[in-house]
Every structure is written in C-alpha cells, then in structure tokens.
C-alpha cells in the first residue's frame, strides 16, 4: 500500500487532518527566556530513552534476592553490550532527574504555574516525585550493600513521619525490615506501577500544556517576538537538543560505567561513609543539621515533618501565590523560589563534598 493510499485509508476512518492541523498551526512564544522550554521536551526524550534501555535490561534481570546481584553481574560481564545498556540506563536516570529539577525550578522562577496552569504544575511535580522514586527503586534492584543500606535509611526516614509513617514504611518494605520481599515490591514499582503512572501523568501533563499553550513570563508579555511555529522550527531545534543529550549520555556511559558493589547481606552492618544518591543529598544534609532530641521529641521526626511541610508548600505554591494568579508581579515568591534553589544546590554540594 502506497503512502498516499494509507493516508486516504486512515482519513476515511479517523480525523487525522485535525492532528495535522494541530502540528501545523501550533506556535510557541518567542522571548528572552524561551530556551527553558527545551527542558520539557528533553525530559520526555529521556523518559523514552529510559523506557527503551530499561526494557532491554528487564529481559535479563532476575528479581530475586538470591539471584538479582548475580544477574546484574551477568548482564555486565557476559551479555554482548550489556555493560553499555546498564550504564546508559544509569546515566539516563541521573540526567532525567537533573533535567526534571531544571524544568521544575525554571517553571517556578518564571511563574509558569500561575493561573490557569496550576494543574500543569501539579502534574509536573508528581512526575518529579515519581522519577525520584524510580531512581530509588532502580538503585535497590542492584541488591548490593550500598543500595541495601540506602533503602533501609530512606524507608526508615519515611517511617518517621507522624501518624502515617509506619504505614508507608510497611508498605514500601513489605514487612518490618528490608528483605527479599522489598526487592520484589520495588521491582513491581520499577517495572510496572511507576511506568504506568508515568505514562498517565505525562500524558495528562502534555495534554494540559497543549490546552493552555506555553506560559509566557509576566516580564516578557510586552516584549514578545513573533511566535515561532512548533513544526518544523521548534521540532528541529528539539531534535538538535535531543541528539546532543544522547551524545552526552553515551559519553558518560562509556567513560564512567557505574560500579557494582558487594552483594547485600541483610545481617551485615551498613558500610562506612555511605551516601545516598545525589538527589537525596539535600535531605541527608538537612537531617544532619538537626540534633537527636529537641524539647524531648525525636529530632529526626521533627526534621522529617519540617521537610515534608516545605515540600508540600512547594507543591501547592500556585495556590499561595495569589498575586501571580492576578497577573501581577510577586517578588516574594521569586525570592522563595530562589531560596529553594539555593538551598537545594548548596546542600547537595555540601553533601557531595563532605
């Protein structure tokens, strides 16, 4: 069937003309900060990249406490290009979370969350949370002693939340402690539950972005240039960014393949100088700031409550920033955004260096 006949066949059954028109007439605002729009497309590209490399690894990974570690060693040492796929998946995950942070902070500082885009912000934030959980669950699948200790600390931290902490901890661990049950559970999260939720939330996020169009910062509304057509102009620019990103991921994967530690032993003590993944360092460092006991209460519980409140405020920021909702400048929320960004960066750097 020729391409033209296929097009006719499809158009007789579906309104493909509408899709064509959407691509043809969709425009993107042009202004001083429009480069930040690329972070969204790049995140989508990296998600697809993670799905592909993850599917390849899932063909050989064995989600059982006895065999998980060995199956990864086999993937890396015995399979043709197995080391490359594992390394690509590892570095793809790091870059996905990094680009998501950039995307979230740029949306925060450019006030892209303001009315009527509150749901775009909320779905984007949920995607960041999912990605971090993706990272944690994927890290645990290694079943080495560092991953084991990291998950024990992370789930233990969640358990310190008042009222519902015990429930979250039990649900994540699948028991009282981190065991083979936890591995099965994290595997289910990593390869089935989280991808499904990601597809739904990402689909909703993209749909909302199409519905509302791209947000223009308040300061740039009067200084906009001529809107650029999405297809082909922005699409080609996106392609260039994706290609360069692909090059960076492959280079990192080849030059810095991730190590595999010793197999986890649930009865062994945690290894010394253990550090969480970089995106948990700010939490790790914040917990260190609190003493063991404050006014007779557990210091860690207080720290977790404060951190949770700060994250909840961040999540609900479109509903607190009333001035932006009324299309007025809100310097207070710009400073709050800057504070969040500086705090996150500073704590991550300190956690990395110490």
């Amino acid at each position, binding site marked *: 069937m020729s391409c033209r006949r296929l097009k006719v066949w499809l158009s007789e059954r579906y309104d493909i003309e509408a899709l064509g028109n959407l691509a043809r007439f969709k425009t993107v605002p042009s202004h001083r900060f429009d480069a930040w729009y690329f972070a969204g497309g790049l995140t989508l590209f990296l998600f697809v990249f993670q799905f592909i490399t993850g599917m390849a690894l899932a063909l050989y990974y064995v989600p059982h406490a006895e065999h998980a570690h060995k199956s990864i060693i086999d993937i*890396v*040492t015995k399979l043709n290009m197995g080391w490359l796929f594992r390394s690509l998946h590892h570095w793809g995950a790091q870059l996905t979370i990094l680009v998501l942070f950039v995307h979230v902070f740029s949306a925060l500082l450019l006030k892209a969350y303001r009315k009527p885009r509150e749901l775009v912000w909320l779905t984007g934030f949920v995607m960041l949370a999912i990605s971090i959980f993706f990272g944690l669950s994927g890290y645990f699948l290694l079943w080495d002693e560092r991953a084991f200790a990291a998950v024990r600390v992370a789930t233990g931290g969640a358990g310190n939340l008042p009222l519902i902490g015990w429930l979250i901890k039990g649900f994540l661990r699948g028991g009282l402690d981190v065991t083979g049950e936890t591995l099965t559970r994290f595997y289910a999260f990593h390869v089935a539950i989280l991808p499904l939720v990601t597809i739904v939330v990402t689909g909703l996020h993209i749909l909302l972005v199409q519905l509302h169009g791209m947000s223009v910062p308040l300061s740039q509304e009067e200084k906009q240039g001529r809107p650029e057509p999405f297809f082909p*102009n922005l699409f080609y620019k996106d*392609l*260039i960014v994706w*290609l360069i990103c692909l*090059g960076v991921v492959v280079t990192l994967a*080849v030059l810095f393949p991730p190590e595999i530690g010793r197999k986890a032993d649930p009865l062994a003590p945690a290894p010394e100088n253990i550090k969480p993944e970089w995106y948990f360092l700010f939490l790790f460092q914040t917990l260190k700031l609190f003493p063991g006991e404050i006014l007779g209460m557990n210091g860690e519980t207080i720290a977790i409550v404060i951190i949770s409140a700060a994250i909840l405020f961040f999540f609900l920021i479109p509903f607190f920033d009333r001035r932006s909702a009324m299309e007025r400048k809100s310097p207070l929320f710009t400073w709050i955004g800057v504070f969040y960004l500086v705090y996150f960066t500073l704590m991550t750097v300190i956690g990395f260096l110490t």
Partner: protein
Amino acid sequence: MLSMFLIVFFLLIGATMLPAAEPKIEVFAAAPYDRHIIYQALVLFWIGIIGLVVIIAMKLREIKRIQDMGIDEEEKDAPFLD
C-alpha cells in the same frame, strides 16, 4: 607456652573465617584492544551526531529563510498534480 599455642590456634581459626578478598567486578572491557574499539566507536558516534546537528541546523536555516520571504504558505487554488 599453652597460652601462646592457644593464641596462635585462635588466630588461625579466625583467619579461616575471614572473607576472601573479592575481585572487583569488571564493568568495562578489560582488554586494551576492546577499549580501543569502544573509544573509536564513541568518536565515530560523535562525528555522526555533529553531522546530523549540522544538517538539521542547515535545514532549519533554509526553512526560516523561506518563512521570512513569506512563500511557505500553501496556495489553496494551486492545481493538484498526481
């Protein structure tokens, strides 16, 4: 003498219980030839990426030039040639 014997005995027993030093798992090709091939492939990969980026950038430039001239609009009454 007995205490010396016991010390040596328990030292030996303890030594047998020590875990053997595990060899580091190779996560990258160990043979210099394989490494060379991989690095060579990486360089070729980057040449391909740069080539594609240049082609897309040239194409984009051409599209912009046509758009600026205003001749990218589709003519509704143009005769259809099949």
